[in-house]
């Protein structure tokens, strides 16, 4: 269960219990001792906030030292760095992804109607350059950058309610208030994802030199750095949430546990981050975190080479890029030789290879069928998921349609997940006959009542060979039931292009939104312009308020109405009830056909790397492994 504090009254949510530790009790990493002796750095007590956040280590209190080695894939993998240092925001996910806990905010207050959020910072929290963090930094980020049309020409979704951007104001030096145009119950969850990192991303002191409001001579700097305008210069120097330049400027102050030493440039082969001497968390013994001195990332362009480095014991932690089922045997086999252990991470997705039936396909005869639930059920029953699981997923998955498969998840819905997953050729045949496909042509394929073979084209990306393997099996299984499947595999951008132009009957892709269903509801609701491929035309209709696209089916319209209500719900209970109704309606309608739920992903960790939360979910909303708090990982001596 995701524990969002009740908000019937304005309730002050206390920070995590801080243990009383005498000021002199704080200790620091040995690598900082010399700097303090040479007076190049203040003593640890001065660098920490008055009441630093106390992190209880997962297994035991650690020891300082060591370098954590991991790999990035090529030169476009900056989000992998973000996942390791983790976005530092007011709040964060609990390790098990079921709740929210304070992070940089010491406490927060939510107004009764969930439209006003007040965050209090810890006094004395410092940026990595030693400057204190104050409300002015947040005002700079929100009022001078996020709401600046030259910097973001459109309103950012996580900060927008009723088409109006949030109003941020300063209560005192350490308190800020976020005021929305209406109730926004999921704002804290948004803050815990990497999608709303903006409030604490930019330090005013350093970044304001690139802003025309604070530096009248910014044009000179723009010219000197050969940038196009000040916004580009700002992004080059101070970064943005998801761009490479966030990791290319060692001067940029941050609030992260490690800071960039050797940057991630266009031809870097190695990226090094070193401990932030001003990091604001301590362990239960009063040792300043992080335990590990450095994070060293090798830039490797080929995935197979990353696997090779893993089995050779050159990586201390790796999940991204090597987590596919096909690597499990080789990673398991070499554990002793590489001195590492493998662990299984549950993907937050709802299905590993789902069939998005296009409800608005251009093939009019097929469109009628696609909108007939009996036809969809027949297609599902004509599939032998056990065969797919055994052959493609090495028996590691299980038949599944849609929705979270972890039964402890708040959004678990048995019917949504398991209905029509059995293989029943006889019933499928009867249903096909019932919808008017009883005639067959010379090759044994069923024909429309009006004539012509029922032939369905499915698009898939070649970068996902698993999806093509699944389609091959389904093609054979459906052929036995008399339905022809034509597979069109293509490169990624062509796939998206075909989808955008509505040139597909089925698109094969993962179903996202399992454990994170409410954060990522594109498989239940036609709201995502590229990904809601049950009908991108419905999405257009919804997003343009009915001006473009095609009117959604009654069932989808009902869900979209519920979704609008959910977005502005005033209490968590109400919001949860609405979202469960959305999922129930999706289960009744059965728009999408799933195959197999994701098998556990395989990651490696060095055998002596401690305090690693082994059951970490794998996903972007829970930016794996960030919320497992890498600052409390350590190497056992």
């Amino acid at each position, binding site marked *: 269960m995701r524990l969002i504090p009740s908000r019937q009254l304005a309730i002050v949510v206390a920070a995590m219990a801080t243990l009383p530790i005498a000021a002199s009790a704080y200790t620091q990493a040995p690598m900082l001792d010399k700097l303090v002796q040479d007076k190049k750095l203040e003593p640890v007590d001065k660098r920490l906030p008055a009441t630093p956040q106390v992190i209880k280590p997962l297994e035991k209190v650690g020891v300082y030292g060591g370098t954590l080695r991991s790999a990035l894939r090529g030169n476009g993998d900056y989000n992998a760095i973000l996942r390791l240092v983790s976005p530092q925001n007011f709040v964060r996910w609990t390790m098990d992804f079921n709740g929210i806990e304070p992070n940089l905010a010491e406490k927060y207050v939510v107004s009764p109607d969930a439209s006003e959020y007040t965050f209090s910072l810890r006094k004395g929290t410092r940026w990595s350059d030693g400057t204190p963090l104050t409300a002015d930094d947040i005002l700079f980020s929100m009022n001078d950058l996020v709401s600046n049309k030259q910097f973001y020409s459109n309103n950012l979704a996580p900060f927008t309610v009723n088409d109006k951007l949030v109003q941020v104001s300063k209560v005192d030096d350490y308190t800020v208030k976020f005021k929305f145009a209406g109730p926004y119950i999921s704002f804290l969850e948004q803050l815990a994802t990497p999608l709303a990192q903006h409030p604490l991303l930019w330090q005013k002191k350093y970044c304001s030199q690139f802003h025309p409001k604070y530096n009248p001579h910014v044009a000179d700097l723009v010219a000197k750095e050969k940038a196009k305008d000040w916004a580009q210069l700002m992004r080059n120097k101070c970064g943005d949430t998801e761009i490479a330049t966030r990791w290319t400027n060692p001067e940029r102050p941050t609030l992260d546990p490690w800071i960039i030493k050797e940057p991630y440039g266009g031809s870097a082969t190695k990226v090094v981050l070193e401990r932030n001497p001003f990091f604001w968390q301590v362990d239960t013994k009063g040792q300043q975190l992080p335990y590990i001195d450095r994070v060293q990332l090798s830039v490797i362009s080929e995935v197979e080479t990353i696997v090779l480095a893993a089995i050779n014991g050159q990586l201390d932690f790796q999940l991204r890029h090597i987590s596919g089922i096909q690597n499990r045997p080789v990673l398991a086999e070499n554990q002793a030789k590489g001195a590492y252990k493998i662990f299984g991470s549950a993907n937050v997705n709802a299905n590993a290879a789902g069939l998005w039936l296009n409800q608005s396909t251009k093939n009019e005869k097929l469109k009628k069928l696609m909108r007939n639930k009996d036809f969809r059920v027949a297609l599902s029953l004509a599939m032998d998921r056990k065969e797919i699981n055994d052959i493609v997923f090495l028996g590691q998955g299980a038949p599944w349609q849609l929705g979270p498969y972890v039964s402890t998840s708040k959004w678990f819905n048995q019917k949504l997940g398991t209905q029509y997953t059995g293989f029943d050729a006889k019933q499928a045949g009867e249903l096909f006959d019932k919808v008017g496909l009883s005639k067959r042509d010379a090759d044994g394929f069923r024909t429309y009542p009006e004539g012509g073979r029922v032939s369905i084209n499915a698009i898939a990306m070649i970068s*996902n060979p698993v999806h093509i393997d699944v389609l091959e099996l389904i093609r054979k299984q459906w052929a036995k039931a008399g339905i022809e499947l034509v597979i069109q595999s293509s490169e990624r*951008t062509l796939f998206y292009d075909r989808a955008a132009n509505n040139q597909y009957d089925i698109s094969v892709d993962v179903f996202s939104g399992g454990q994170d269903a409410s954060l990522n509801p594109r498989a239940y609701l036609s709201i995502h312009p590229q990904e809601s491929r049950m009908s991108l035309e419905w999405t257009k209709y919804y997003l343009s308020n009915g001006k473009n696209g095609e009117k959604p089916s009654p069932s989808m319209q009902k869900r979209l109405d519920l979704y609008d209500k959910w977005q502005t719900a005033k209490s968590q209970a109400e919001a949860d009830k609405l979202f469960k109704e959305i999922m129930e309606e999706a289960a009744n309608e059965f728009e999408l056909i799933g195959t197999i739920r994701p098998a556990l992903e395989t990651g490696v960790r060095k055998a002596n790397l401690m305090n690693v939360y082994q059951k970490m979910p794998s996903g972007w909303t829970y930016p794996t492994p960030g919320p497992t708090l890498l600052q409390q990982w350590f190497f056992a001596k």
Partner: protein
Amino acid sequence: MLSAIPFMFMVSLTVFILIQLPPGDFVDSYAASLSASGEVIDAATMADMRHRFGLDQNILMQYFQWMSGIILHGDFGYSFEWNSPVSALLWERMGLTLILSICTLMLTWMIALPIGIYSAVRRYSIGDYFFTLVGFVGLAVPQFLLALVMMFAGVKYFGIDVTGLFSQDYANAPWSWDRVVDLLKHLWIPMIILGTASSASLIRIMRANLIDQLYMPYVVTARAKGLSETKLLLKYPVRIALNPFVSSIGWILPNLISGAVITSIVLNLQTVGPQLYQSLLSQDIYLSGAILLLICLLTVVGMLISDILLVLLDPRIRFE
């Protein structure tokens, strides 16, 4: 010479149209790649990026902005993916690319020329058969496969990592004598891998050319007049047999920059080839455009150089 200018103009236009031909643009491909790792970007941010990068203008406008930047300011534009000037990104990799390519070229010639001469002179000897066999194997095995096998063997039997051009300690270090030594330690593996295939084909070319010459009447005459074998061989037939080598320099120059893309990706070499590949995939048009322009320019320059060298080498050839 002057005809190169309109030619380069046509090339730039073709390049720009070609890199714009794939469906979608950088923002689409960015969204697709995020979505492939389960990451999300909303429609407003996409529109915002398109506007920021000028991708919402029509192609002609984009082309003229690109060209005027190059001609008037020597500015090759901005890489979308790196948010930094294209020229800076290119120069970062150019040095290592040139070192690797030139070393490989030298190695290829050092292996191929003597063996080619030997094979021609001692035609159908055991040595010739041996080198022929090696040559055909070298031609037939794809370079990237050879790279993968060497990597696997390195890890499995020697416990060493053969990828990259530097060891981790020197990857980001400033240039020093130790770093040069470290580079040399790593350089020989890609040199051998990249060198095998081209050596093999050069051996065959050299052998065939020389055999043609060896039985010409002028060789027989020279031998009859008592000229020593070595002098005879090197001064006349080898010199003429070198012609095809020299005329191929025009192709070698662009290859220096962008050759062996797949092998470089497998071996994780920070050269221009993988950068071109990555920029084409992500539709980072100004970066890929600049690299392609550079390759075309080098082809033009290479042709000029090989023409001049041919004239010097073989007085029978003259410009009309």
